[in-house]
């Protein structure tokens, strides 16, 4: 498409520069998108992609740089101006309002005139035309993530956009939902709508996009036709160095069952929560059990139940090292040798305003013997925190800095290191690399694998299928609070997992066909 030299570019950016305090987010960035082109903007977290699209959409003002729209120089002062030009944006973190209905949410994001009478009929028509089923009267909090994304897309389509910006659209979708989204995007492209597609998933970009601009550290580091590149060559442009895939020893002999869950039921009294129903599995020494699932299917509830933040009703439903701990709190479970890495780094994994060594003390005081007669052993604690920083290459001057002064990846490395240095026999991590840059993610993956190789039982709950396939020994799927039987990674494909993530109702298998896994695997009811 981009070959048509006579055509005017739909969008042309020249020399966009944006300086944030202490960080040059965009440095002389240029970008051209032709009509009907699906253009990938590729880069790691922190590469400056979000700043650039926020500039296009009028949320952020650049210090320097020019934007041309259909050959005319324009100055987009706010999102309303962008929408009037015909720019629509689907945010990564949806700009939706939970307690409002689908129709109300859509009305908020479009002009007053468009939001007038007959809006609901128009929503229904568009959602039918483009295969994006939506009920305008539902409240957003009752919808799945995929449905929420449809709201954003329908909201954009109602405005008949000429350029659609999609920020990491598939990070929250099942593979099947993503495939459905691509059908819609290809159709829009055929109708002449340009799409700026932001992602770091190379396979999708190869399959979907006509052209790609690659960013690193705020600068454009490459431009390419994805179809002519390999995933590896694009990854190298994106990351800048050669990344090592995590090394796994496939010949690890599994040891004893260290973590055993049997018929765990946790009813929720939260309207937006998920009840856990009859969950049973076990994790043995030396293995990593991955739990896949779309957000909001019981992962947080499972993590709370495992960490002891929510106690089980039956003491016999959770066993650690052969001891029933269903009614034991987090402290007791830690003492038995369990390490936890919660999803939320700031506020759950670490106290944001406290220093790193104080945070190290809070989780390690018992296992690391950092307390004497009610006093903190400050020197020992600082030594412990410093050794975490050193061994896990946490980028920070020293352990007297507050947890919230670290970047996401560095803080996650610190939290992970803090737990691993306590030499846990069971490690439970929820979304261990969420929002972490690729380098830190690879490091964390390797550490988890090493931990398992050294004989710990590791449980990783994650939405990132690539991550689970890279590190897990076995994978189970959690959907609507129920967990499937775990299967060996070698017996699974991404498609199978994707179907199961869509809901237990779609479970394609019959129980007899499942391979037998040693060591008391129980079946879903």
């Amino acid at each position, binding site marked *: 498409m981009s070959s048509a030299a006579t055509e005017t570019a739909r969008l042309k950016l020249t020399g966009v520069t944006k300086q944030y305090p202490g960080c040059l987010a965009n440095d002389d960035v240029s970008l051209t998108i032709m009509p009907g082109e699906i253009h990938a903007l590729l880069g790691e977290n922190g590469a400056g992609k979000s700043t650039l699209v926020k500039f296009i959409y009028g949320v952020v003002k650049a210090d320097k740089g020019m934007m041309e729209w259909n050959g005319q120089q324009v100055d987009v002062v706010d999102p309303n101006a962008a929408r009037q030009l015909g720019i629509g944006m689907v945010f990564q973190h949806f700009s*939706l309002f*939970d*307690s*409002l209905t689908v129709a109300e949410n859509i009305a908020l994001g479009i002009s*007053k005139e468009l939001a007038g009478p007959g809006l609901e009929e128009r929503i229904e028509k568009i959602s039918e035309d483009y295969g994006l089923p939506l009920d305008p009267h539902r409240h957003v909090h009752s919808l799945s993530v995929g449905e929420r994304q449809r709201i954003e897309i329908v909201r954009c389509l109602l405005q008949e956009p000429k350029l659609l910006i999609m920020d990491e659209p598939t990070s929250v979708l099942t593979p099947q939902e993503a495939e459905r989204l691509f059908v819609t995007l290809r159709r829009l492209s055929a109708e002449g709508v340009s799409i700026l597609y932001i992602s770091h998933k190379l396979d999708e970009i190869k399959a979907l996009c006509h052209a790609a601009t690659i960013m690193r550290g705020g600068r454009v580091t490459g431009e390419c036709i994805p179809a002519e590149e390999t995933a590896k060559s694009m990854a190298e442009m994106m990351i800048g160095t050669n990344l090592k895939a995590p090394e796994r020893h496939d010949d690890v002999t599994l040891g004893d069952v260290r973590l055993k869950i049997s018929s765990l039921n946790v009813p929720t009294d*939260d*309207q937006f929560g998920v009840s856990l129903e009859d969950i049973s599995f076990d994790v043995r020494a030396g293995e990593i059990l991955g739990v896949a699932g779309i957000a909001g299917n019981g992962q947080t509830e499972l993590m709370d139940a495992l960490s002891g933040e929510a106690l089980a009703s039956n003491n016999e439903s959770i066993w650690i090292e052969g001891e029933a701990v269903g009614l034991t709190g987090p402290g007791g479970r830690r003492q038995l040798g369990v390490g936890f890495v919660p999803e939320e780094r700031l506020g759950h994994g670490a106290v944001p305003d406290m220093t790193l060594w104080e945070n190290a003390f809070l989780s390690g005081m018992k296992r690391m013997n950092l307390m004497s007669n009610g006093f903190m052993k400050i020197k020992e604690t600082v030594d412990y925190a410093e050794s975490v920083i050193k061994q896990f290459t946490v980028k920070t001057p020293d352990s007297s800095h507050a947890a919230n002064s670290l970047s996401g990846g560095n803080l996650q490395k610190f939290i992970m290191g803090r737990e691993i240095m306590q030499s846990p026999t069971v490690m439970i991590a929820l979304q261990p690399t969420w929002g972490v840059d690729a380098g830190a993610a690879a490091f964390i993956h390797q550490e988890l694998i090493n931990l398992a190789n050294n004989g710990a039982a590791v449980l990783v709950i994650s939405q990132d299928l690539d991550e689970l396939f890279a590190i897990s020994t076995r994978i189970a799927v959690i959907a609507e609070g129920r967990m499937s039987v775990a299967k060996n990674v070698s017996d699974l494909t991404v498609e199978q997992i994707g179907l199961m993530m869509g809901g237990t109702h779609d479970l394609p298998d019959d129980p007899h066909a499942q391979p037998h896994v040693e060591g008391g695997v129980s079946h879903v009811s």
Partner: protein
Amino acid sequence: MDLFVAIMVNVAAASTPLVFAAMGELVVEKSGVLNLGVEGMMLMGAIAGFAAGYASGSMLIGIIVAGIAGGLLALLFGFLTQHLLANQVATGLALTIFGIGISAMVGHSFVGISLDPIAKGIPFLEDIPVIGKLFFGHDILVYASFVMTALVFYFLYKTRAGLILRAVGTNHDAAHSIGYSVIKIRYMAIVFGGAMAGIGGAYLSMAVNPMWVEEMTAGRGWIALALVVFATWRPGRVLVGAYLFGGISILQLNLQAMGVTIAPQLLAMLPYLVTIAVLVIISRDSGLMKKHAPACLGKIFHASS
């Protein structure tokens, strides 16, 4: 029957200040701001309205000035919390203390003066037998409070501006990214809330008890705040809650007058106790609370760009 009508007129008078103050606070909280300064703004309205009414001889001017005074104090709250990003709880408490102090200072020279109360009753209509006095025997502000309830409901749930206000209270980051001015919308809600609290306060000093007494709101600002929560942020329930409180406070006065052998101190506690008890019971339904509670309530909004 006459006694009943008289009681109902008193109930309406006792409830109306709460309706105004709570309805204002409801709009403020729906926009995601928690202003604990209702008591202070009511007192400001009470003394400003009384002084202006006394000086001008016009009730209408008194009410308008009360609204302006409450609104101005709220504007101060808005500046501190929206521009200087001060903590809303601390600022609201400070506003109440400030309002108590400044109203006492201004009111010092008005102590002992009394004002003609605002006229009650709608001509002709109040002469209808039986229901006349019951429905048309009140002063104009009682009716205004009902109209205000309906307007607030209509605004919040039927207009685009109301939808935007609710959206800002639910998720200010999303509202900002779509392109709404969170701070401007909150300013307007805060000032409206202050004006309503001011009018509610003026109703006390101009209609219920037409004179100035220091701290004459006697905790009604706090009750108004509690009502908003107890009503799970719904205008209709705020109205019901205000009349529950007003009704019980008049009922206990009548019980005292009838010589019931319960300690008057206990009876005087009754409206507060019942309102709090109902509040606690209703708040137990966490699902209902979540559905209507503004998710950003009390959170500071800091535009990241």
